[in-house]
């Protein structure tokens, strides 16, 4: 039986091999999938906001891209992952509505993706693929066997990145 672990909104999980980490219905949030190529230890975060320093209430580290990446990497290292073997894949960060007003609200998906890139770059974790932006939701599944990230949509097909 497959070990499927669900990651909710503002949530993150790390696991030993074998596991499939999944998060459903990513919209403007960003899914950050990490994979250690050697130990096959995997991690997945579903972060909502780009920057924890912009907000007062930051009790939930998984909510923010910057703190979520730190915590996820830490949890993976605790499981035995090797830092310089970890690679990243990104998905999500869509703009669900095309509004002319409230530009800040509308750019949140883009900002989440940009924040994830900056944060991963600062940790020297290479981003090897991404499926971000657009105006549609995504369900993603990270397979610890292959490191493949499966991206499912309504009306925009299924792909592996």
């Amino acid at each position, binding site marked *: 039986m497959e070990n499927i672990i669900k990651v*909710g*909104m*503002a*949530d993150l999980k790390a696991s030993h091999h074998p596991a499939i980490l999944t998060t*459903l*219905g*990513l*919209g*403007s*949030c960003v899914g950050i999938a990490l994979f250690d190529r050697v130990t096959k230890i995997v991690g997945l975060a579903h972060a*909502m*906001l780009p920057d924890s320093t912009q*907000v*007062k*209430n930051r*009790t*939930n580290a998984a*909510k923010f891209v910057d703190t979520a990446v730190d915590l996820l990497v830490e949890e993976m290292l605790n499981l035995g992952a090797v830092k310089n073997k970890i690679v990243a894949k990104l998905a999500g960060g*869509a703009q*669900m*509505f*095309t*509004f002319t*007003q*409230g530009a800040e*609200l509308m750019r*949140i998906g883009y900002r989440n993706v940009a924040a994830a890139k900056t944060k991963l770059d600062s940790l020297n974790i290479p981003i090897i693929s991404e499926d971000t932006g657009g*105006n*549609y*939701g*995504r*369900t993603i599944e990270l397979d610890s066997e292959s490191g493949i990230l499966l991206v499912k949509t*309504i009306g925009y097909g299924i792909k592996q990145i």
Partner: protein
Amino acid sequence: MSVNFDSLDNVHIDVLREIGNIGSGNAVTALAKMLNKKINMDVPQVKVLQFQEVSDILGGAEIPVVGLLLSVTGDISGNIMFILEYEAAGVLVNILMGKPLNETVAFDEIEVSALKEIGNILAGSYLSALSTLTNLNILPSVPELAMDMAGAIISVPAIEFGKIGDSVLFIETEFSEGSTKVVGNFFLVPDVDSYEVLLKALGVAG
């Protein structure tokens, strides 16, 4: 200032329930007039959910839903969103267009604009109830519509709630025409600075 739904007391919940009640009551009355049908409504439920649970409210994060988003300006600023299941949206469109209720809706251009009109009426009358209750000037924009997975649509208001707390507040309204039930969810998402204005106007600040 800090408004945190995690620690919202019963008075706040009661006030918000009352807004929900009056607001969606107004909305349903307006819809009944527009459709020229008798529409029944259950007492709206005010719900406060953690992010992890929120995408399950419509039966799962991957369920296709229709979301109508309006921005709000005036004395308070923010957004109001009305979400309903894809099938329920189809029922509403069929009622509006005078078609059999079980007919499949393709959501072509005309049907999308019919849905936007429904969003206009629902959100407009909801906000006018809130406006009367608070004596605040609250103006809705033209609605934007998106159809996608529930989780993805709900992420839009959820992110706004995420700036102030770890939970989402929304009002679940169930209405029926004949034996057909339609469940819709209202998310009123004031900008961070507007909470104080709103709660003060309702006499429950602090």
